[in-house]
């Protein structure tokens, strides 16, 4: 650790001349600086967001009208599979790891991440995993067309693309586990004197808990895909009844990972929003301690609710009841969080810059996703809605309006700190409103489709679903174009944005705002601040 700091210990705040001795591309390949690595994660995630987004648009293009128009059903299934995998593992998760890299050391007064070289490796595993996923399209038989859940035994029928996907999942899992170990170690060991656990910004808390979830859940996924691999090639029958296995076993293992995964994505998003809302309310976060407890409660509950994704596999009635009760319980800590955010705004001094708009949009839409989650947690209703577009709508309210909105809030919020330049507020607001409107245009109507009986993952549909699908598809193209607009806003800010003031947001009060200049120098907190 100290050796990394020592080689740069010249003690000045200049930017651009101390990038580890390399310039150009080698700087990025060899960097061990948490800010560089954070930037890499964020750009990688944006690129994958575009790749996954193009697949989403292909799906919506095919679904614009009934009939098979552009893609054969096989390719359509490949798009749904890769859209899911790329968005979850390539876009959303790396985006929040990017925030963690940038923010955690600055927020706790640490000079860098605990394992700086490991940090580099954690990132550089990702592009190769992403590449494997994309290459799978060009193998004989194409990418797997099995859905991102990779259910057995359909996976056994796939071509070599399936194996590439399995290895990609292994790499992604390794990257996540290494990154998590790094985050846990950093938070537990590198806090500045006086930065007690219960004084940490909530973003750091949510990441601490998320990192534990990752360490616990990712090996389970690795196990599931490894068993799939041996079932495919080495004659095992984990998921084949003919050899004493059980296809449902796969689903149990997958969702034992899969449900914590939902909170792996959601908790850091909660963390970002918990920084943004107090800043623009000019009030401290309401109920800080209960936020920490609620986050922990959600994390623990997330491990005992997995089978609510499997109500239709034919569980005994006691199994269904247990998982239903446990799942509805999650509404309590989640409710506490929503109430705390609203109470933070209550009697504040509110302004509505772009980060705050995205945070409020998050709060509003994520709560809707929470309510549809409650609806789906009830076994009898889920029996009707399972595997329909209602579920698609529900989890996009959580993943897009939840995680993605919060990531946008985070980018607009911290961009001035990171780059020393302001984004264009008017354009930012346009980005928010267009995103908000197009998002609902895509996904709100999908609730109706699901209720009326349209299954998910179908390339063609009965005529009665046509109107909603058209609206949804138009919304999707609007949403996609709006995100190119976001890229423009960010590039414009970086290249020619107005110079950011020393304290861009008067209500923001964590260490990066109070103890560091704007823009932040390449190396920060080489001497830890004393906060006692």
């Amino acid at each position, binding site marked *: 650790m100290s050796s990394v700091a020592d080689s740069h210990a010249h003690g000045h705040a200049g930017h651009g001349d101390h990038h580890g001795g390399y310039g150009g591309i080698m700087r990025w390949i060899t960097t061990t600086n948490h800010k560089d690595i954070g930037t890499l994660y964020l750009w990688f995630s944006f690129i994958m967001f575009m790749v996954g987004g193009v697949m989403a648009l292909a799906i919506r293009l095919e679904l614009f009208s*009934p009939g098979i128009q552009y893609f054969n*059903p096989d390719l359509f*299934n490949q798009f749904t599979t890769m859209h899911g995998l790329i968005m979850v593992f390539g876009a959303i998760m790396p985006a929040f790891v990017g925030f963690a890299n940038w923010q955690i050391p600055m927020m706790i007064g640490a000079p860098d991440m605990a394992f700086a070289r490991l940090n580099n490796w954690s990132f550089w595993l990702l592009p190769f995993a992403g590449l494997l996923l994309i290459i799978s399209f060009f193998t004989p038989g194409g990418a797997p067309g099995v859905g991102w859940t990779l*259910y057995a*035994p*359909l996976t056994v*029928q796939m071509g070599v693309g399936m194996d590439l996907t399995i290895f990609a999942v292994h790499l992604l899992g390794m990257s996540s586990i290494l990154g998590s170990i790094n985050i846990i170690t950093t938070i537990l060991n590198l806090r500045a004197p006086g930065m007690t656990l219960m004084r940490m910004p909530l973003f750091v808390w949510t990441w601490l808990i998320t990192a534990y979830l990752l360490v616990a859940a990712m090996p389970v996924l690795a196990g599931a895909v490894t068993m799939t691999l041996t079932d495919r090639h080495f004659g095992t029958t984990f998921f084949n009844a*003919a050899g004493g296995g059980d*296809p449902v076993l796969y689903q149990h293992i997958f969702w034992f990972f899969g449900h914590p995964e939902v909170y792996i994505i959601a908790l850091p998003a909660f963390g970002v929003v918990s920084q943004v809302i107090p800043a623009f*309310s*000019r*009030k*401290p*976060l*309401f109920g800080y301690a209960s936020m920490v407890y609620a986050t922990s409660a959600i994390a623990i509950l997330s491990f005992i609710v997995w089978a609510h994704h499997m109500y*239709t*596999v*034919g569980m*005994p*009635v006691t199994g*269904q009841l247990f998982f239903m009760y446990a799942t*509805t319980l999650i509404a309590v800590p989640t*409710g*506490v969080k*929503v109430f705390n955010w*609203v109470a933070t*705004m209550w*009697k504040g*001094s*509110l*302004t*509505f*810059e772009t980060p705050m708009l995205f945070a409020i949009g998050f709060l509003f839409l994520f*709560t809707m996703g929470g309510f549809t989650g*409650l*609806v789906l947690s*009830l*076994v*009898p209703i889920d*029996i*009707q809605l399972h*595997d*329909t577009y209602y579920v698609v709508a529900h989890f996009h309210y959580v993943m897009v309006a939840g995680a993605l909105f919060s990531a946008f809030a985070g980018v607009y919020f911290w961009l001035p700190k990171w780059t020393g330049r302001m984004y264009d*507020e*008017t354009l930012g*607001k346009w980005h928010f409103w267009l995103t*908000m*409107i197009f998002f609902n*245009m895509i996904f709100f*109507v999908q609730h109706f489709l699901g*209720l*009326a*009986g349209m299954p*998910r*993952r*179908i*390339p*063609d549909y*009965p005529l009665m*679903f046509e109107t909603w699908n058209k609206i949804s598809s138009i919304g999707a193209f609007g949403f996609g174009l709006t995100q190119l607009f976001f890229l423009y806003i960010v590039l414009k800010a970086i290249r020619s944005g107005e110079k950011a003031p020393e304290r861009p947001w008067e209500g923001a009060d964590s260490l990066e705002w109070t103890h560091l200049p704007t823009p932040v120098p390449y190396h920060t907190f080489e001497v830890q601040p004393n906060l006692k």
Partner: protein
Amino acid sequence: MASKPARSGVVTGVAMILIFGLTFSGLASALEWNLQPAGSKLAADIHSLHEYVMLLCTVIFVGVFGFMFYACWKHRKAAGHKAEQIHKNTMVEIAWTVIPALILILIAWPSTRVVVAQKDTSNPDLTIKVTGHQWKWGYDYVKGEGEGISFVSTLATPRDQIEGNAPKGPNYLREVDNELIVPVGKKIRVLTTAADVVHSWWMPAFGAKQDAIPGFIRDLWFKPEVTGTFRSQCVELCGKEHGFMPIVVTVVSQQDYTKWVGEKMKAIAAAADDPGKTFTIDELRSRGEKVYASACVACHQATGKGLPPAFPPLDGSKVVLGPKDKQIDSVLNGILKDGKPTQMLPFAKQLNDVEIAAVVTFTRNNWGNKTGEAVQPAEVKALRK
């Protein structure tokens, strides 16, 4: 920081949301937007549970966000509001932990009743096994009226409609060649399984959905209360043609059901061999050729020359050209040599009278054998021990 153009952005945004919102709600009332009409009490119970939960959710949602938007309006800095530095209130925090927990009990109680009813598949009037195949459904009536009926149900929509070369019909993608027929007012138990990958059988009008898992049997039940045709499709991704394996159930009155079962049974009987019938020699020969191809050809060869010495030729054989009874007996009971069975095994249990009569007729009138004799099933029957 809100500049003038920024505020106009907010106004435009709100206006756009209103316009879209109104358009949506207008369209929603004109189009399919809710659960399909219930065709059974269970489905009706599910629907009222859904409405009840949605009502609770809406009230809470409006309440919480009423507070939030009130704060957005009243406590905005632009209106000169100064932040009050409150960040804790233990009583309020306890209240908003306990009250939601109580509301959950209000939701869990009625849900539990429906779950228990939904899982009770006991005492069915009719049991049907449903097998998911890539990409069609197999139906077997295994117990109750209609027992023994068995058929496969496949998409009936022509390829031309799917590929856009013909106008799409009203039941596009939700029409099949053989519909599942069930009687109204009877408790139907459906056993699900699959032949290849996981499928899922769903009939929304009856609140019935169950995955079909290869190698395992699961079950569900429904009790249709109205007659009519109900349509749905496979809901678990099962490969390429997942979107093209519809499920169509037609509920008919008890009389119509009995009539349908009668017709089906007659058809099954008609398809079965009738041992009392007298066939022409050509009928027997052509049928016999098929039986020969499946039962005899491996040893005696298509040429009838056999593979001597183990498998003697039939072409020119003394047995085949000899008395009918001797040949029928050797096919029925096999050939013994010194009291021990030979490679010529008994076929009495594998082939029925019609099949044996046909294959014997075939061998006696094929290759170089030209006896011109037909063997009738009755003759085979007479020789059975």
